[in-house]
């Protein structure tokens, strides 16, 4: 089967109105999302997330590089036949009812009327809008409009979903439902590309992410890989005294007492096991040993801060085009990121995995 979403060396340079300034929205990114993945695209404002999605959908033409959906070039309208899109800040005609909206956009996706009539009620049920099926969209709250947008994106049962801020304005229960719905779609083999500012949503929903910064992929990979904190552990044990701590340190480990537990850094797994053996030999009892992880938010903030938080107008550098591949990480690629390996997270607040 063709790769659901693929971009190679994608760049986009906007010119100012009188052609006096070049603004680089994308500086040559590679992106590959495999079937059944829920892939998150992260980045600060202006990082190039929406431009990437728009190029994939043929709404914007790339300056260089190529993009394809399900093996067809993004410029070919046929590539969108099996793709559903929920744009950010979409505006459905207010005079349409929810049912009419699904009918029109279903037919615009090439569905016949009978199929749309069958599928629309099912989808409205899935997004909890059944009771509002015949109410005009202009009466809808933002969250309801968002849920309708999701239904419109899914009306033709697409194989690929591109969603720009799908939970924007949706209440916590609704968010949870959308999350469940997307995961259900992924289980059915659908591919989802999620573009969101809500890092906690991404963390809970996505298998893999790519962080864009200044039009480049700053980091990419599985969330566990990005948030892994090296050989750092939370240690809870009895019988740990200063003598034992000094003995730990003599082996090269770093250990600190933090809020009733120990923050332990070791060289590797063997080193950790050796320390545990030593603890037991000294009569101590292990209660908990947990690898520490940073949150996705910490990773994100670190990455953005590295570049001074700016994301606009970064000049393209053909030598260092970043890439994010949804394929399983290879040892060479540092967890699926090509050209721009994930930056190590800084000393930020940790949470147990």
């Amino acid at each position: 089967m063709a790769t659901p979403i693929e971009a190679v060396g994608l760049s986009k340079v906007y010119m100012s109105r009188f052609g006096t300034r070049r603004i680089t929205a994308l500086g040559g990114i590679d992106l590959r999302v495999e079937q059944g993945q829920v892939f998150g695209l992260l980045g600060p404002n202006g990082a190039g997330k929406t431009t990437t999605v728009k190029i994939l959908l043929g709404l914007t033409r790339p300056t260089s590089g190529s993009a394809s959906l399900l093996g067809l070039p993004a410029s070919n309208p046929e590539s969108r036949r099996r793709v559903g899109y929920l744009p950010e800040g979409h505006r459905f005609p207010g005079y349409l009812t929810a049912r009419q909206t699904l009918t029109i956009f279903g037919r615009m996706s090439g569905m016949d009327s009978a199929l749309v009539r069958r599928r629309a009620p099912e989808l409205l049920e899935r997004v909890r809008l059944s009771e509002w099926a015949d109410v005009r969209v202009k009466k809808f709250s933002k969250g309801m409009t968002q849920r309708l947008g999701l239904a419109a994106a899914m009306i033709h049962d697409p194989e690929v979903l591109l969603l720009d801020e799908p939970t924007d304005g949706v209440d916590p229960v609704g968010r949870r439902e959308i999350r469940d719905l997307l995961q259900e779609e992924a289980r059915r083999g659908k591919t989802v590309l999620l573009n969101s500012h809500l890092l906690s949503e991404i963390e809970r929903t996505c298998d893999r992410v790519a962080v864009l910064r200044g039009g480049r992929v700053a980091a990419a990979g599985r969330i566990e890989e990005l948030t892994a904190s090296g050989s750092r552990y939370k240690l809870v044990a009895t019988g740990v005294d200063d003598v034992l701590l000094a003995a730990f340190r003599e082996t090269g480990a770093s250990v600190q007492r933090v809020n009733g537990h120990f923050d332990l850094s070791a060289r590797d797994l063997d080193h950790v096991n050796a320390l545990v053996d030593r603890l037991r030999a000294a009569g101590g009892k292990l209660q908990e040993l947990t690898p520490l992880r940073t949150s996705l938010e910490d990773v994100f903030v670190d990455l953005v801060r590295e570049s001074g938080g700016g994301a606009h107008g970064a000049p393209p550098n053909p030598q260092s085009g970043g890439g994010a591949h949804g394929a399983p990480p290879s040892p060479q690629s540092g967890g699926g990121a090509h050209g721009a390996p994930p930056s190590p997270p800084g000393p930020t607040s940790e949470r147990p995995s």
Partner: protein
Amino acid sequence: MRAFVASVQEVFREAAARWTLIAYFALSTLFILLFAAAVNLDIVNGALAGMKLFGQTVDLPDRQIRIDELVLGFESTFSGVLYFVGLFLALFATAHLVPRLQEKGTIDLYLSRPIGRVSLLLSRYTGGLLLAAANVAYMIGAIWLIVAWKTRVFHPRFLLSGIVILFTIATLMAFAFLVGVITSSTAVSLMGTYAVFFLAAILALHTQISAAVSTEIVARLVEGFYWVLPKTAELGKATVALVAGDEAPARLTIVNPVAIYGSTALFGVASLGLASWLFSRKDF
């Protein structure tokens, strides 16, 4: 094809929902009712014995007026009025079609579907033209029926006037689409199209204007503009002449119909072609 048809239907649905369709047909109905109420004819033995316009008695000439002659004159004059009314109403009702489509948050919804950009634009154009055609048919058909009902004279040539009116609407709507694609503004589309309409009407006097200007360059410019722009004044005359048939006065005769219709059609095709090209290259 389904997407194209759905988009055409959407034009009608939008027109109905936004009151455009209702206002469009309500104004046309008002025009028709005014006409029906204003004209009161007294016909005796196939000749006009008396006539009232807006309740006022019209002084008839001494010679007897044949009723079919009256209907012909009446309908041919009225086709000229309909040319302007139909054109203006049609442009008002359709000028928003492109600017509204290009609004942020709307265009993404349409272009993310498997429909080509040119097809999408042409579906809007087709929808707008069908809307205008329905209205022109309604106005012409209703007035034709009223005249036939009041005079018992059926003069089918009057119905032909709709063809020239629709041809002119198609041309100017193409230009309105072009302005709409470039500016995304309904107001500018309307102003630009009306400007072309009036400028082209003034340029119908291009021979006199060219003779009156002081330099050769300006004269050539006037001639150039005349041939580039649609021939709105000539087409107005052509509408009347088409209805009058052999009875049309000499002043309504178009000297070179192929050039008039041809250059106008070329303007429309070029406008729509350019609009399609720009729309297909635009970044949203």
